[in-house]
């Protein structure tokens, strides 16, 4: 059968200041009609450029196809004129993007933006196009489509915006849909809804989908075939089952091992691939992966392997045989932290014996928005509403929930970046929120933090040494040589080269910057660290490096963590106990194993079920959760989850369930715990 789309040896150069940089090199790709092909790879691998090249959208960004061909149903797209290709865009090939907010024009209504594409590619009149647009919105699951037609992108939630984007893409029933990380910016329950929608659409319209993602779980969930890219080249492609069963390329193998699964052994260190993806201007010779590869030989260092076919699949590696027949080479010792795990299990018992390190008591944080002529209408956002929990010494407490649930606000309250509306935070028995003037500094000393954004959380104009040494300077007035000495110690501890002391942050990769942040956090040897989405912005292979580092440090320095995240698999790996938040409320607390084995709250159950499993043999057949989280300005009465809960009754609508003990160390706020 002739494939719908065939990309043959496609090479693309970008021009910057007159210099050509090769961004993708001889990429081969085939998509059959009705097939979902996932393209996976870390940031900088060339996935997005490949997709933009297929649409010829690189024309607008000084990109140029220097070699190869792209054929759609036998028609070469490379030789088309600008006018000819623009007729095909949106009609035969459509595209959806990662950030549905920035991908929609903010100053036109959703309706206008759908009608526009219909008018362009069909003969519909404007009223007919409006009718069609409403049908489309309905099809992609947007409630009250007539109302939404007149709304602007900012008035819709992230999930609704992505649905609207899909409606625009579907408008002319294209043969190929390119989806570039369409769920990365969405919460996991919304992600499940969107993935489900895409599968339905594929079946309904027999559409082909090129799905770009960095998440192997999603690929396993949705793909028929997988293409793996690395540093601008396709290094492997195979049917999804084959790939997950036996990868042919060491990089793919490494990626698969880096994935933290829901049933992985938590006492083991996470698998990591050394180093990080090279920048396109400094590509290594030979195989582009060889500096990070455990199997690399001299041949890999000098000769670049071509993509070769082998039993219906392709890989570009000189050592496929070695990979297939030799036992896996894991360089680092795997065992770590086993001993600490026991502590968690006996936590409840222990709790009775000594004070917890940190105790959060009935914390509330309301934000007010003022409206009206004299700001008379005050509206309250209930960001955090009566949350209590404890964290023991040496413990890691995971806090999970979807965006807007209040978990980050809670973290900010603990760091005293926000003033709590009411409630107490006791650290070693002392209330830090109302500490006397002389003592506020000492609590800041013991509670440190690591933030999400490795680029935003360090001052770009400070030297690395000064960034790491800032707490030493503030709290111990260390300067000059004394500071340098301590900072160098810490840098070695987190795996940074002390020679980096006098360099500026922009010279470092995301993973290294996160090491800088961690070094700053441990410089004062604190007792407690709030890690707010500390690894969420990093690539899979780097993520594991940082998680391992944090666990090593915990053992060495006797740290306790509050680990705030939305990625449940990482939280599961690192946490001893986990709290689940929904709409400002803590709805469930349990030890990690208990929570994953017996989730009691229906929200927790749905959240767990929504995570894509990196195993194509265990695909989901049901949709875990409908609807979206209501606004925290106007929370539902009774149980806040009742609007989305399948088990909700009248009782749930009227009376708010209290967080109560349902088992050893297991609390849940539900009238009908499972």
């Amino acid at each position, binding site marked *: 059968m002739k494939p719908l789309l065939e990309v043959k040896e496609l090479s693309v150069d970008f021009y910057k200041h007159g210099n050509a940089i090769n961004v993708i090199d001889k990429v081969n790709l085939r998509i059959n009609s009705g097939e979902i092909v996932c393209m996976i790879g870390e940031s900088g691998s060339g996935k997005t450029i490949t997709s933009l090249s297929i649409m010829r959208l690189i024309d607008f960004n000084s990109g140029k196809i220097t070699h190869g061909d792209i054929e759609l149903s036998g028609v070469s797209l490379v030789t088309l004129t600008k006018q000819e290709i623009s007729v095909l865009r949106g009609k035969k090939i459509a595209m959806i993007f990662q950030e549905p907010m920035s991908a929609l024009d903010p100053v036109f209504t959703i309706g206008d933006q759908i009608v526009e594409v219909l008018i362009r590619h069909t003969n519909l009149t404007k009223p007919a196009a409006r009718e069609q647009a409403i049908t489309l919105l309905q099809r992609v699951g947007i409630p009250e489509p007539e109302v939404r037609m007149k709304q602007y992108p900012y008035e819709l939630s992230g999930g609704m915006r992505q649905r609207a984007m899909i409606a625009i893409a579907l408008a002319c029933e294209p043969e190929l849909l390119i989806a570039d990380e369409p769920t990365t910016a969405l919460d996991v329950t919304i992600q499940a809804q969107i993935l489900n929608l895409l599968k339905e659409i594929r079946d309904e319209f027999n559409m082909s989908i090129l799905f770009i993602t960095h998440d192997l779980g999603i690929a396993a969930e949705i793909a028929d075939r997988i293409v793996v890219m690395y540093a601008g080249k396709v290094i492997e492609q195979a049917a999804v089952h084959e790939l997950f069963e036996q990868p042919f390329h060491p990089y793919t193998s490494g990626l698969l091992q880096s994935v933290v699964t829901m049933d992985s052994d938590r006492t083991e260190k996470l698998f990591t691939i050394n180093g990080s993806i090279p920048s396109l201007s400094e590509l290594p010779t030979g195989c582009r992966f060889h500096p990070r590869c455990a199997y690399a030989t001299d041949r890999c260092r000098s000769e670049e392997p071509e993509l070769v076919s082998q039993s219906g699949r392709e890989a570009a590696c000189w050592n496929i045989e070695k990979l297939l027949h030799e036992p896996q080479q894991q360089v680092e010792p795997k065992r770590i932290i086993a001993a600490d795990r026991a502590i968690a299990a006996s936590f409840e018992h222990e709790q009775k014996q000594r004070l917890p390190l940190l105790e959060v008591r009935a914390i509330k944080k309301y934000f007010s928005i003022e409206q009206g002529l004299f700001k008379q209408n005050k509206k309250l956002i209930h960001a955090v509403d009566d949350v209590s929990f404890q964290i023991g010494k040496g413990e890691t407490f995971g806090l999970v929930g979807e965006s807007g649930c209040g978990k980050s606000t809670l973290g*900010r309250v603990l*760091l*005293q*970046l926000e003033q709590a509306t009411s409630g107490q935070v006791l650290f070693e028995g002392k209330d830090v929120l109302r500490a006397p003037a002389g003592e*506020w*500094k000492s609590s*800041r*000393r013991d509670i*440190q*933090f690591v*933030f*999400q*954004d490795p680029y*935003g*959380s*360090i*001052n*770009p*104009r400070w030297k690395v040494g000064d960034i790491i040494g*800032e*707490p030493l300077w*503030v*709290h111990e007035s260390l300067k000059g040589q004394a500071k340098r000495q301590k900072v160098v110690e810490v840098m070695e501890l987190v795996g940074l080269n002390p020679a980096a002391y006098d360099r500026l942050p*922009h010279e470092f990769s995301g993973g290294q910057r996160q090491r800088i*942040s961690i070094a*700053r956090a441990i410089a004062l040897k604190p007792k407690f660290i709030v890690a707010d989405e500390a690894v969420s912005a990093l690539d899979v292979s780097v993520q594991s490096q940082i998680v391992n580092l944090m666990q090593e440090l915990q053992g060495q320095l006797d740290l306790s963590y509050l680990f705030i995240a939305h990625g449940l698999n990482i939280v599961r790996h690192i946490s001893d106990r986990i709290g689940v938040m929904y709409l400002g409320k803590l709805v469930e607390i349990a030890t990690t194993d208990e929570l994953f084995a017996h989730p009691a709250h229906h929200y927790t159950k749905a959240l767990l079920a929504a995570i894509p499993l990196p195993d194509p043999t265990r695909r989901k057949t049901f949709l875990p959760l409908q609807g979206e989280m209501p606004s925290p300005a106007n929370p539902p009465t009774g149980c806040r989850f009742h609007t989305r809960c399948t088990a909700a009754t009248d009782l749930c609508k009227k009376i708010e369930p209290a967080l109560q003990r349902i088992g050893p160390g297991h609390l849940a706020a539900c009238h009908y715990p499972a």
Partner: protein
Amino acid sequence: MLSASLIIVFIVACAIFPEWIAPYSPLDMNVNHILQPPSAAYLLGTDQFGRDVFTLLVYGSRQSLLTGIGSVLIGGLAGALCGLLAGYHGRWLDTFFMRLIDVVMSIPGILLALAISVALGSGPLTIILAISVAVIPGYARVMRGQVIAVKSRQFIDAARAIGTPNREIMLRHILPNCLSPMLVMMTTGIGFSILISSALSFLGLGEISEIPDWGYLLSQGRSYMTIAWWIATFPGLAITCLVVSVNLIGDELRNRLDPRNS
């Protein structure tokens, strides 16, 4: 860019060592050579008193440059300070400064500067002061916007969580990250101030010193426009060249300091 730098170097040289560059003395009045068109002897012609226009321009450069740089230093620094305080402190201080700026901005800049210099009595220093006051709001606004943008970045939260005192956050974290746009604005601001000061002289603020500045020369030349075009044209050209050069350097600075280009 190169020519812009050369022009500036030349004008700065004129301002510092006028006597080395100018062929005559600015006070020489040669009644036999009034209103001479440009020639080998008088490169840019002579004015109504028989003074060499080129010499006058060379000597006048000092006043123009001093006014430009002085008012930017005073106005820019004062504005930056207001903006920094308003932006960092927020709340009532911000409201207060912003209203104050609204008030000053609602008065046309030239009228404000004119009123101040008339009230203080004219003189080179007065002009600098008057222009400084008129340009403060612009700097304060830009600085405030910049501070608010930097304040929302996460490393400020980081510093607060560490316990870094407010004063240090303002001086060591926020200020360094606001400097580049201020630097660009102050560079182009020199040009803007020179334009205002020449307009003030033109409006008849009078001769403020023995040696006429470029704006005053230009306004004098206006009366002889139809019979001696050079008197008005060359001072204007000199101002334009200086301001274009300053603006070009400002643009170049903006490009170099833009984080997206590094």
